[in-house]
């Protein structure tokens, strides 16, 4: 499905990040093409979320190059990420409990009418449309988030990725707290994103989910790339081996960055 000759939509090269003495990422590479779901897997603390936060504009890499559609970019803020067409769903449910579903969907990119005022009606209409497309079970788009179950809230979080025509979607543990049926819905949605031509980065602990939906699996271990696998053909044990370190990736590229 991936075409190596094409320019990847998202390309990260030699990304490093330190938090004080802790080296979270050391020379990590990641490429995602259009129509592709790349799963980013690894043990706790492998640096998955750190990498996701860089794409989302929450963190800046210490070193390394980020390119979107072949153009070098810096992503200094979440708003900048949005402007570049990156939508992110964070692990810790970045939603406002006091706001209703519509306000949450459009938070930070509210629609305005001709006078520059909030266009609540149009937003509500679009919100209903999007949730209908997602076939999510939300009682009403006017209820505050605090009135929804965890699964419903996750649906809202996912639905946010459909607003504002993003090109790249980053999902950080989107199914972590969901029931089997809800998980299935989310996975169908991820496939829908791929069919729309988006580049999807899926961070997950759940190998079943990953193998069900991803095209390629990138393993991170201790802040370094530890193997890239074809999701269709690679054996489960092989991926687990890369995650736990039983299998070593034969790419020595990260060592140069490690001591920097």
């Amino acid at each position, binding site marked *: 499905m991936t075409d190596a000759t094409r320019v990847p939509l998202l390309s990260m090269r030699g990304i490093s990040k330190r938090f004080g003495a802790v080296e979270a990422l050391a020379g990590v590479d990641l490429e995602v093409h259009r129509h592709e779901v790349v799963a980013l897997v690894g043990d706790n603390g492998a640096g998955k979320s750190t990498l996701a936060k860089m794409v989302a504009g929450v963190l800046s890499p210490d070193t390394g190059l980020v390119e979107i559609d072949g153009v070098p970019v810096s992503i200094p803020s979440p708003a900048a990420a949005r402007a570049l067409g990156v939508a992110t769903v964070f692990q810790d449910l970045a*939603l406002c409990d006091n706001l209703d579903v519509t306000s949450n969907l459009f938070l930070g990119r509210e629609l305005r009418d001709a006078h520059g005022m909030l266009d609540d009606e149009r937003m509500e209409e679009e919100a209903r449309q999007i949730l209908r497309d997602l076939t999510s079970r939300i009682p*009403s788009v*006017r209820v505050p988030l605090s009135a929804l179950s965890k699964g419903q809230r996750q649906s809202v979080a996912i639905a946010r990725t459909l607003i504002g025509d993003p090109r790249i979607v980053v999902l950080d543990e989107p199914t972590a707290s969901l029931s089997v049926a809800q998980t299935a819905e989310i996975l169908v949605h991820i496939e829908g994103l791929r069919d729309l031509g988006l580049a999807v980065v899926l961070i997950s602990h759940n190998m079943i989910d990953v193998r069900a939906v991803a095209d390629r699996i990138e393993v991170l271990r201790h802040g370094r790339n530890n193997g890239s696998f074809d999701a269709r053909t690679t054996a489960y044990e092989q991926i687990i081996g890369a995650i736990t370190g039983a299998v070593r990736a034969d790419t020595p590229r990260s060592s140069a960055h490690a001591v920097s």
Partner: protein
Amino acid sequence: MSTTTDVNLPAPNPPGAPRVSLGQRLQGLGGNARQYGIFGALVVIVLLFQVLTDGKLLLPNNVAALFQQNAYVMILAIGMVMVIVAGHIDLSVGSVVAFVGGVVAMTMRDFDLPWVVAILIGLALGALVGAWQGFWVAYVGIPAFIVTLAGMLVFRGLALVVVGETIAGLPAAFIRISKGSLPNFLGFLDNMDVVTLLIGGLAVAAIALTQVRARRALRKHDLHVEAVGLFFTKIAMVALGIGVLTVILSLSAGGTPIVLVIVGVLVVAYSFLMGRTVFGRHIYAIGGNRAAAALSGVNTRKVDFWIFVNIGLLAGVAAIVTTARAGAAIAAAGNNFELDAIAACFIGGAAVTGGIGRISGAIVGALIMGVLNMGLSILSVDPSWQMAIKGMVLLLAVAFDLLNKRRAGTQ
């Protein structure tokens, strides 16, 4: 409450066929349901004191005085509720009122500037004070409690510097802001001030019109609207309330107090700001989940900064009203004003944790405190007991609110 209805059912809901259960709709009202409760509490308290005072509470001149005496609380509560919704607090407004009031009085008496210029200087100074505190809160990241606690001391000190001794002898036109009423240029109708009646009528018409237009907009987008009966009952209740108030005020000695017009304009403008603008939406978002708002691209620092500029500006307005009412600037002016404003917000349903609260609620909260004050004074209750009673009302109002929320939370 836990039944779920698919949103992917036929979208245009046929009128009269509700898609959402009553329980959900009440849930959706959320803040609204509490708002109605607070309005109800105000009505009960007014009726209670009306009976206890043998009808003296609602005498026309007392009602006019109620607004003149409590205008400062309402003005400050508007700014305070925005600060509280964003998850902050402002302890400095009382001192800022004294400081700005002193400067305003000084510019009129010592520099002989026209009162209009003095007012503009006062507003600008208030906003400047707000910008100062907003800078420390938003861009340095010091908790607002600390910044405004410091501000409380700093500006009380500066007020003492400016107002060494009472600055009296202010222009009559300036004093009229608080003590005067709109001129009666349309005569009387059965002893009722026609200007007041006109304003009341226009207010009702404007409210009805905006409600109908909002409803029509929802209809246009095939969105759910409340039942026709409920809709018209709501408008009728509002019209009745404003109507009664209008008639009472039109019978008062002066008609419509000028401060009531000021407060009215501010309430409308700020309700609009909080409800229909991106800035207002972001204030609620920050109060609900600051991190989520930031991740969603909300510029939380900028919002924080402007919230404090705004309450500084409103403290300037309150300073002008307070100084005009006293007819002089004194260094002790505005003592405990911050507590009045904060109490009004919490009685009015604002959440201590932020994210919840409305302008209308804060105004009703201020009115509840004002009615208590006036009722207890008419009953000549000892001021020390008045204070104790008001304290208990604050405590019980918030306790009631909390218990309600807890009950709603355990579905």
